[in-house]
């Protein structure tokens, strides 16, 4: 729906238009300012930060904080920068996203096109699993990971994120395949395609959008996760978010705000990039993950 503000007379209409745009711009500033400050701070020297104005552009541009953050900053006891944690996150995210997406796609396929009595209950069980506060699973999960010998390891985090991501990926694919015409599946059955043949040849080629949505959604969520990372992989195997928090909140030494900001931007970069490149799918995933149905 679109409707313009009605007003009496041209000048009044113009006034409203100006007020409207001003308000919108003020809010844009509100949302952009922290990012702007992060960026400018990350290119300033510590001395300039102490003396100068946070909002000012750097007088002396320097990429030293970025190099520091990436290769030299101290996270916990080691001072080798955040790069290893960045790779930890990658090693955690990629397998978790792949496994969860594949399982979700197959689940969605079964729950819509190969229904059995009780399929609704199965879906309800998985759906509710999406919304539990994860605090509820921390204690037993730490036990299980310990028993499996993958506590403090990215492999453990892959398992954790897969276990709690399946609900959402199943939800996404189920709702997508729900709208996929069942007659196509019937036609393929009559044509002689089997369970996997139908999935592979008929459904999957039409699943591009939902795969993108699911991958983005899972990627963003797993990359941004802190609770599981902090609980199960605090040391060397910690993901990026945990390392960032350790870096920023370490109580020893001088607070190097410029390095902190550079590290924060590095931590945010992958998801920001995804958002900028595929914002449409990102929003769709957010909607699908919150507006149920």
């Amino acid at each position: 729906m679109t409707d313009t503000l009605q007003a009496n007379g041209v000048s009044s209409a113009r006034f409203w238009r100006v007020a409207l745009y001003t308000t919108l711009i003020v809010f844009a500033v509100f949302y952009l300012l922290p990012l702007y400050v992060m960026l400018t701070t990350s290119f300033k020297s510590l001395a300039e930060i102490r003396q100068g104005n946070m909002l000012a552009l750097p007088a002396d541009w320097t990429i030293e904080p970025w190099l520091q953050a990436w290769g030299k900053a101290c996270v916990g006891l080691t001072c080798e920068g955040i790069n290893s944690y960045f790779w930890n996150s990658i090693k955690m995210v990629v397998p978790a996203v792949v496994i969860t997406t594949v399982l979700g796609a197959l689940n969605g396929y079964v729950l819509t096109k190969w229904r059995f009595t009780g399929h609704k209950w199965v879906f309800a069980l998985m759906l509710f699993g999406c919304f539990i506060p994860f605090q509820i699973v921390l204690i037993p999960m730490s036990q299980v990971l310990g028993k499996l010998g993958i506590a403090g390891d990215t492999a453990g985090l892959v398992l954790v994120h897969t276990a709690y991501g399946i609900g959402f990926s199943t939800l996404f694919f189920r709702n997508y395949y729900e709208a996929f015409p069942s007659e196509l599946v019937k036609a393929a059955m009559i044509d002689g395609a089997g369970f996997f043949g139908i999935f592979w040849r008929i459904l999957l080629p039409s699943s591009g959008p939902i795969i993108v949505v699911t991958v983005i959604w899972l990627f963003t969520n797993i990359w941004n996760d802190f609770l599981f990372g902090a609980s199960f992989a605090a040391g060397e195997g910690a993901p990026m978010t945990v390392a960032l928090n350790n870096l920023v909140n370490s109580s020893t030494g001088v607070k190097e705000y410029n390095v902190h900001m550079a590290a924060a931007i590095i931590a945010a970069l992958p998801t920001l990039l995804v958002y900028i490149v595929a914002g449409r799918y990102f929003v769709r995933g957010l909607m699908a993950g919150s507006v149920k149905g």
Partner: protein
Amino acid sequence: MSNKNRAIGDWLRHHLPRLVLSPSVAMTIFFVYGFILYTAYISMTKSKMLPNLSNFIGLDNYGKLWKTLNWQVALDNLFIFGSLYIIICGLLGLFLAILLDQKIRTEGFLRTTYLYPMALSFIVTGTAWKWFLNPGLGLEKSMHALGWESFKFDWLINPEMAIYTVVIAGVWQTSGFVMAMFLAGLRGIDSEQLKAAQLDGASTLQTYWRIIIPQLHAVFLSAFVVLAHMGIKSYDLVVALTGGGPGRATEMPATFMYSYTFTRNQMGVGAASAIIMLMTIAAIIVPYLYAETREKNND
């Protein structure tokens, strides 16, 4: 093919869909429901640093929990944070959505701008705002530099006000998403109704108030559920922004659970607090999911 092989083949073909589904179902049952039961059981034991399954003490931990001052503070904070977070995000989201709905030329850019914080980790958001609101070097100093000498903004280290900084950062992160939800709702309204309202002589304001907003009740509900859910679970933001402090000024149930379980060696109490969190969320989510899925089935 022998008869036996064919029988196996038929059986496999018949059960294949369920076989494919079963690993996920097994994982869900184990990792979600099994773990919930386990935590529920732990909450009724005298577990300290490690789970202690033999020492069953019934609901004692719950009694202890409610008498713990930190838990009281956490609940108070959750109430303050939760209600402000939900109300401000909701109103701001609706407000921005309505503004963006006025045939704005740069809508795409503005929408992207309002929504991008949602792509960030709460840890990044917390780090950014912590710096931005830094009492010594952040906003306060910038305002002084701009000539506003008396400007004072020390909420981050002021126990009375610190919780509101969490609200600000939370709103900053999530309100764009609420806007997107409302915008989608607005775009879903039949434009012929608006033409009819125009012909009926309604002003823009009246059209929104009397015709459009009442039709967005489903979006209001969804937004409420999403925000309440995020609010109750919020852990990362508090950790990154205030670390629960100063003192325990920004303690929340999520941080309470974590610290009692893993650092204060009160696992039983921590588990009890997790159960309370689960029940609170379930009380909001379950009726919502039930209504949503039922609605769908009635189509």
